């Protein structure tokens, strides 16, 4: 009696382990960190790309407008791929695009924009990558949708047309 009880429980336990492993095999193994939302924008100041002026974040982002902060770099290949979408987004009147030029060479960055067009209303320069860390970025490209001085949405990796439609619907 006791023996059978142990037999069945051990078989049951191993069956459960089996099914969990079986399910686990079919799971995606790519890890995306959870995104913290509704976070206030960091308090920081930054140099601008075309002038040497230093400007505070609070002067850039005001309470009314939607802002789209895009972290990019001339050496980053996916940034090049998403650039057309940024150009398209910049035609929208309801949103202002802010570029954060990440660990880049100023000349290269300017060449990049000359070649592909400049979608940004303002471009911040992040030579050492500290500002990107302040924003909580994990890599380039990465974008943040900002409203009322808060990050309401975060996009890891390059944009695509679907995401662009979503962004446009969010800012209506």
């Amino acid at each position, binding site marked *: 009696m006791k023996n059978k009880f142990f037999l069945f429980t051990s078989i049951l336990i191993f069956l459960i382990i089996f099914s969990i492993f079986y399910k*686990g095999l079919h799971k995606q193994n790519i890890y995306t960190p959870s995104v913290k939302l509704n976070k206030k924008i960091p308090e920081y100041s930054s140099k601008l790309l075309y002038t040497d002026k230093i400007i505070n974040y609070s002067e850039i982002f005001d309470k009314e407008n939607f802002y789209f902060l895009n972290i990019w770099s001339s050496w980053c290949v996916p940034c090049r791929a998403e650039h057309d979408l940024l150009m398209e987004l910049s035609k929208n009147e309801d949103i202002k695009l802010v570029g954060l030029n990440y660990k880049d060479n100023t000349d290269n960055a300017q060449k990049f924009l000359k070649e592909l067009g400049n979608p940004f209303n303002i471009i911040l320069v992040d030579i050492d990558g500290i500002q990107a860390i302040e924003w909580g970025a994990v890599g380039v490209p990465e974008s943040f949708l900002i409203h009322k001085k808060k990050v309401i949405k975060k996009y890891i990796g390059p944009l695509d047309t679907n995401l662009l439609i979503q962004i446009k619907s969010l800012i209506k």
Partner: protein
Amino acid sequence: MLSSSIGYYALILGLISSLLLIYFSLLNFRDNQYLNTKILSFTFLQFIFVITSFISLIISFALSDFSNETVFNNSHTTKPIFYKLAGVWGNHEGSLLLWLLVLTLFTLIFLLKTKKQPLKYRILTILFQQIIIIGFFVFIIKTSSPFNYIFPVPKEGLGLNPILQDPILAIHPPILYLGYVGSSIIFSSALSATVLGLITKKWASHIKKWVLTSWIFLTLGILLGSVWAYYELGWGGFWFWDPVENVSLMPWLVLTTLLHCILVLQKRLILTSWVIILSISTFTLSMSGTFLVRSGILNSVHTFANDPERGIYILIFLFSLIFLSIIIFFFFHKKNESENESFFWLSKETAILINNWFMMYFLSVVLIGTVYPIFLDVITSEKISVGPPFYHKLIIPFLVPFLIFMAIGPKLRWIKSNIENKINLISVFFFSILISFLIVRNFNVNFLINLTIISGALYLFFITIRDFFIKKNKNNSQKIAHFGFSLLILSIMFNNIFSSEIITNLKVGEILETSNTKITFNDINQKNEKNYKSIIGSFIIETKNEKAEKFKPELRIYNQPIIITSEADIKTTLLTDKFMTINVVQNQDYFNVRYQVKPFMIWIWLSVILISLGGIISFFKKEYEK
């Protein structure tokens, strides 16, 4: 082309011999008094088939025959011949073929070495072995054949992961596999002995050999892996609690426990359930290791391929074996009636039993730490990672009583014992605490934890040293192994306490000065080697007490595939290792420089060698007595 076909058909023939062997053993099991000679010849033939297959894969690698898919994926013409050959088992398909080779070899040796054992037991063990072998044959032929063709034939291969281009790593998998696969014999033998009711003292002394063999290879295999991680991965550590390391540690823990249980069984015919369950778990844990590493359910340096089909196959195979053994255990195993109440509180077997429970506790910590993240991910989609603090916090406190029982246990007698030399045992104990207090006091570390562990380890250390002098030549294997273990814990603790590290970014010509060390970055050189480009930094390190030393850490940029690896420059002396690595910082002239001083590194390796030496002595000792 030709060698691939030969290899493939040899595998098919090997599978056919497996089926024939099962047929013959079933026939022989019922009929005969004598072993059917066909069983022996087909086991031998099967081994010949598998080794033919393995050699043809070696030839394909040696000749860089890129019509073979495995060679194409894992080799390159510019690779040195030694690594071309090591590439045979540096990938999923080839390593499985190696596993199969060892499996058939061990089966053959088992058959040859057990002429004195009962016939039914031999045949049944062969039958179980063949079930495992068939499982591997089908797995290789169906899902991971190393002999697939590619057409048109590519001109160049894709190269071998350069992290794996290391002489230590070239022999690490074969040694580890000898350990893993040795446990398959223990598994089959324990099952058939259970079925036939043969769990006896005689069986214990026969299977002890196999347990020792497996244990020695597993110990050395883990050591090699750990040495490799230290030299090659450039993190300056030797154990990272990486899931794949844990997966090799778990069978080791079980085997060590099994080894001690077998000793008890051999003397007293108790703990039979322990022995059977441990024998089963050793092999199933080795198999789960293969499953976890090969299925891609874990991501680590060891993961070769992420192919769910392979994972599902191993999973089903593994669990069929588990269910088979559970059923056999419950239906056939009968406990001896005398077994239950025969433990006296103060005896050698009680001490072994207590430490067995500690071992099982360590095993469950490692098992939970490895498997729980997978479970949690599947059930709740939550990702967690379990790191060293988890293992350290749960294992370290329990090491102290474990070490003390390890010291006292061997001094006790079987069945019933008194503590002899009480005064000695107690005075050594206080002496250890005193010494440990004097050491720990001078350093700014967690006082209580370090004090207790170092006392525990020192206690075992002094007791075993004392034994070498008073009980000459008696049970040397145990003394050496236990002494090695105390040395291991001590070296790890001292390594941990005394280690120091400087991490900085430097460019050529710069100097960094801390309170007691001065690092000068002199120069940088580039060289082109056969299959990589090397960047060698040249540093001078000056400390207050020692004279200046030159360090030349290296970065290697491999061409196929393009991977950057960092080769540490390590200066080893008896007392400390000095360890320096460089790394590139993105888009700048700067290099990330990491300089570590790691005392007693070499003692960690030496103590593990001592532990396995204990096993080796025990393995050969029985021969003399007979």
